[in-house]
């Protein structure tokens, strides 16, 4: 009997309108599991921002979610362009989002800062021309 639940989400690069569905699904699963609402909020925001980033900047990727009795880990891996300057990207207000994406309300430049704020641990591995992997952990 396993003491962890593993979920995987393929984030499409074809249908932009599906962006945000994976984090929505994790949120409803956590609700059904009776996780603390404050924790659910942190996880939903952190994962939502990461998922949107993958769609806007990297043409999608894969999100692996591991839920244990103690915590939830989210591994967001893409094969996008990579982040040129991580410190700059982490700055509040800095964004490289395109115009049509901004029209939908994205691109305020708060994605990465919010991910850091709402997760208990965060790690970014990135290589230009290869891709980016963001790992976040939220404790229950």
């Amino acid at each position, binding site marked *: 009997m396993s003491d962890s639940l593993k979920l995987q989400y393929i984030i499409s690069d074809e249908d932009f309108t599906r962006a945000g569905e994976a984090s929505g699904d994790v949120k409803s699963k956590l609700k059904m599991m009776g996780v603390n609402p404050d924790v659910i909020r942190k996880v939903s925001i952190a994962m939502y921002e990461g998922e949107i980033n993958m769609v806007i900047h990297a043409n999608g990727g894969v999100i692996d979610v591991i839920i244990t009795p103690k915590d939830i880990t989210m591994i967001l891996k893409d094969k996008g362009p990579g982040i040129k300057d991580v410190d700059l990207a982490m700055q509040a207000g800095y964004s490289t989002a395109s115009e049509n994406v901004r*029209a*939908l309300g994205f691109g305020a430049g708060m994605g990465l800062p919010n991910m850091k704020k709402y997760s208990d641990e965060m790690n970014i591995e990135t290589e230009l021309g290869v891709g980016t992997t963001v790992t976040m952990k939220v404790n229950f």
Partner: protein
Amino acid sequence: MSEFYTSVHLDKDLCKGCINCIKRCPTEAIRVRNGKAVITKEYCIDCGECIRICKNHAKLATTDSMDNIHNYKYVVALPAPSLYAQANNLDDVNIVLSALKEMGFDDVFEVSAAAEVVSLLSRKYIDEHKDKWPIISTACPSIVRLIRVRFPNLLEHLMPIKPPMEIAAEMARKRAMEKTGLPSEDIGIFFLSPCPAKVTSVKSPIGYEKSNVDQVVAIKDIYPKLISAMTHVVEENKVEELSESGRIGIGWGRIGGEAAGLLTDSYLAADGIENVIKVLEDLEDSKFSSELSFIELNACTGGCVGGVLQVENPFLAIVKLKGLRKYLPVAKVHDAPKDISSEWTKNVEYLPVFKLADSLLESLNKMAQVDELCKKFPGLDCGSCGAPTCRALARDIVRGVANEKDCIHILREYIHKISDEFSHL
């Protein structure tokens, strides 16, 4: 229903015959006659500007009563997305939807969900009709009526897809009939409306024969009951997960929301009836050199949140819509339902209601008469004659519905002349 039904109407007892509405009307549809405002139905586009400006509250919108739910066996509420932005401290649209059920509706169907269907169909239509670029949105009924009477060259650019309210109504009706087995006439589809133009689009549709909406209730009329129902469903833990729309659908409630759903850069969005008229004039003159694919036009400043039947300040409402959309998926609807009629079935014809005469020669004559008359008037546009401008009075005279002596300046000169003659007797 008459071709020129208008929801906007006057309460004569409250009207003081001042000049505020006649000056404000973007189509010069109002005159003051015998001390009361009179709307020429053919010119009225139901934009609601007169309702906004009337300080005597004499200008009203005809809407239906919530009590009409008792006329049907099964009633479905269609909340406009701007409804979600009317209450304070709302973080979940499901509270509004659950409250509507608490108020007596058997079911709800979000107009924002149908809006995502329209966005989907629009993306396809725009892609497939480059010859019609820029394509003009037809969601705002005032704008369609404005173009129909004033901008005939732009008629071919109108997007021939039914507005979200209509598609929501058809989907809601089908769903209700399947669920209950009841015949169509026992089902009441109630649209919760931000404005009078939507009432007119139900009673006298453009582009299709008949609306699937049965009743249109003003948002300000249900607001008090809605707020207490919302408080109730939260306290009693009765909030159900009913929402089927995402960021795109809910964004339709504000200016730019419809355009954003097209996932393109090449759009223009304009709000406020005077601003829209300027854009349409420039468009008619082909002044736009860039490759615009789509033009979103809303008669109300702020978009539908700025409708005259709303409660909240439109700019505050926009902030609230932003907050409500924040962590929603971009869209929740990904396929258009196969069995609904989403396209227009009738062409929209130009209605030259402003023309002076039937033949070109006659019109030229009348134009010359108008110019001659204008020379006699002081050009103050004071409104005392009951027309918004001196030129409008000149046109009225040539049309045979007014008299030179309606102008108080001309009348005053005439009286002086007569009293002069008397004194020389």
